[in-house]
């Protein structure tokens, strides 16, 4: 089955993370190649799973275009991860820097883990009539490529914010270290959640950690989260020092942050907003309806438009704008997952 193959790819992404960490700590070139190699193998397996999925869908739909597997939340998360890792490998090759591999494999691992924990269906599902549209296909594909570009800009932006913050009390420093700490906590929690699952159908994120039914474990988990945050807050400079040792400086980080958005913004505009509007126009007879998903896409768009314009404001230097890039990706995640989880709307597409 395709999703088992994709889970293996996810596992390899998770394994790539500690390899990258060891590389950063030991500075051994060979280990760096091992990390990159792991991501490459992961991508190949992932592609294989993607093609397998395509075949499974083709058996139901008998149509080439209708069988491209990006038709529900599971498939779109998987496609997002594929774009993210591929995009990262291109950045790594272009700039010759491997430092971000840690966070990219972390995000890839979390995303694949979420497909297990959010209770999304992984079965191949037949398409309801409203989803049979080439506009929808273009809409979803381009949106997720853009999301992946935003994710890369988020990673670079996060390091940029961390590197340029003045001291431990500054907002920028607290924000970036907290987010980093939370991401590491999240991946651990996801791994533990998946390892301790008893009933395949009723898994939930944080079911074993923050939301454990035993008060003791729950309190322990919350303390662990706080400890993570404290550790990252206390020793954040170490990360900066390591990055600098790898010749990753503020200029490079700022540029990758900007490039990610400059690449993602037009794609998101055409794919996310314009094609989405055309599809809605054809399917429902309205191009815009202030449905929560649409509204949050617009908000995401505005945040990144804010980023592009912030540079023209007096006194807004590099790292202040990178904060917007970081916030922008958090808003993107909310548009993508949060709206489905917390708000309701017409987008049956994303329903779980």
């Amino acid at each position: 089955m395709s999703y088992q193959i994709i889970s293996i790819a996810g596992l390899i992404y998770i394994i790539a993370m500690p390899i990258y960490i060891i590389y950063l700590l030991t500075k051994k070139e060979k280990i760096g190649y091992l990390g990159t190699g792991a991501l490459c193998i992961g991508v190949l397996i992932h592609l294989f799973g993607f093609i397998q999925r395509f075949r499974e869908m083709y058996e139901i739909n008998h149509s080439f275009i209708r069988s491209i597997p990006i038709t529900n939340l599971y498939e779109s998360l998987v496609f997002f991860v594929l774009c993210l890792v591929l995009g990262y490998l291109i950045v790594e090759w272009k700039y010759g820097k491997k430092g971000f591999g840690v966070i990219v494999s972390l995000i890839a691992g979390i995303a694949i883990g979420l497909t297990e924990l959010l209770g999304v269906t992984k079965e191949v599902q037949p398409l309801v009539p409203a989803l049979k549209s080439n506009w929808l296909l273009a809409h979803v594909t381009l949106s997720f490529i853009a999301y992946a570009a935003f994710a890369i800009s988020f990673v670079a932006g996060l390091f940029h914010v961390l590197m340029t913050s003045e001291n431990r009390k500054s907002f920028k420093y607290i924000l970036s270290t907290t987010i980093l700490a939370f991401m590491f906590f999240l991946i651990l929690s996801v791994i533990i959640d998946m390892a301790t699952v008893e009933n395949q159908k009723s898994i939930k994120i944080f079911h074993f950690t923050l939301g454990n039914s035993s008060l003791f474990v729950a309190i322990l988990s919350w303390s662990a989260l706080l400890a993570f945050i404290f550790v990252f807050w206390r020793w954040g400079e170490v990360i900066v020092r390591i990055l600098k040792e790898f010749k990753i400086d503020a200029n490079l980080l700022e540029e990758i942050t900007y490039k990610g958005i400059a690449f993602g913004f037009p794609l998101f505009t055409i794919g996310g907003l314009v094609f989405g509007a055309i599809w809605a126009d054809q399917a429902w007879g309205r191009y815009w309806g202030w449905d929560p998903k649409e509204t949050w896409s617009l908000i995401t768009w505005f945040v990144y438009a804010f980023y592009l314009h912030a540079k023209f404001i007096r006194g807004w230097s590099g790292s202040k704008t990178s904060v917007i890039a970081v916030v922008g990706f958090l808003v993107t995640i909310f548009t993508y997952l949060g709206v489905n989880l917390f708000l309701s709307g017409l987008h049956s597409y994303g329903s779980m």
Partner: protein
Amino acid sequence: MAKWKLENLNEKIWNFFASVDLAVALFIVISLAAAIGTVIPQQLEPEATIRFFSKFFSMDTSLKIHEIVSLLDLNNVYHSWWFTFLLFMFALNLVVCSIDRLPNLLKSYRTLPQALSMKVLESMPLKKQLILSDISHLKEKLSEILKRKGFSVNVFDTPEGIQLQAKKWSKTRLAVYLTHFSIIVILTGALLGTFFGFRGHMNILEGTALDFIISDEGKTIPLDFQILCEKFEVEYYENSAVPKAFRSYLKILQKDKPVMINGKDTVILEVNEPFSYGGLTFYQASYGFQPTEHAEFRFTFLHEQDRKIPIRVKFEEKVRIPNSAVLFSVIDFSPALGIDEEGRLFNMTTDMINPAVLVEFDNQGKKTQQWILKKIPQTWDTPYGKLRFDELWGAQFTGLQVRKDPGVPFIYFGSILLCVGLFVSLFLRPINYFVIIDKNKVTFYSPTLKGKVTIEKQLEEIIKKLKGEGK
């Protein structure tokens, strides 16, 4: 004095609307307002809104919150006066900002290039200096390298040395204005749609015609033609209740005569494939089950020797089976007959997933009953021959969404401009280099803030070439 003050004030207002600061502030404020609208339920009855708040607060507080919410139109954000006002400010900001800046940009293309002062050059974020040993024909070599890379080059003699200006894609800065203009076009389209368009729906029962629309506000809008739904059908995925496709076979009637559309008198309307007639656009939106008097059960009697005889009956109407004395009638119907774990029959939904009829045969007083299922051929065999159940016609209605929106061409046109503008302005950035050649000392400057690392790389390439050919 008073005049001076007035001019000063005018200028202040102008600058306020021309500033990017206002744009950025509006990005935030509009985003927050839009976000509120996704949290507080929109356009509901007061009771429903209060019920929503009472999930989180006590009843008293909920009532008070509801008062504030309805005072500020927070339960109808996107159509409230203040949200419209924000969008208007946004548009005004864009227009004023463009009028403020575009002429300068255009002028800069028209004026002849001039040598820049050292002060301007030194303030640029990128600077790279190198000393060369071979200084013959430096100017010509560098110009040649830059020109081969697609730059246009201007050379000046200055007190500090020879100044070389290289430019590429400088016209692409205009694309930003195209982007901004496209947003105005889109907003104009939205405005036209709000004032001169409407949306509504019509539910047409299979076999009947309608000549009016119910608008979203609940008003009846008459049409000067009729729409007849001849047939409506839903296809389901095999062994599943998931609809695969649904479509209506429609006829447009003018004075009871069908109108030809694209050379055909029947329009097949499907999801995602709307059609337009008389300034209106029709969308296949939904469907439903609504049994009425005129509904007709359609059978085919499969005689031996491959003869097929169609039979149409109303509910409980008695008809003779061909070439026999047996009467039969439909006495029950189920749109989705299912069998539960204990083998009992039950009806799953009102969708026609698995239509079935209970027929009663009357053979000169001897009565028998039998379920005939459309999708299961084994059930077509009856004691009196093979009777295939084809469909229940006239018991479903097709739900059409209807829209008139003169703004749509603006939206599409604006969207194209938006995409073109964005791609050009973000993918084809202008690149500028300024070079001072002072004997054997060559200094490169670049004003770029975005993509400094890439520009540096490119510069290194140029320098390598310069050195390589200099040796």
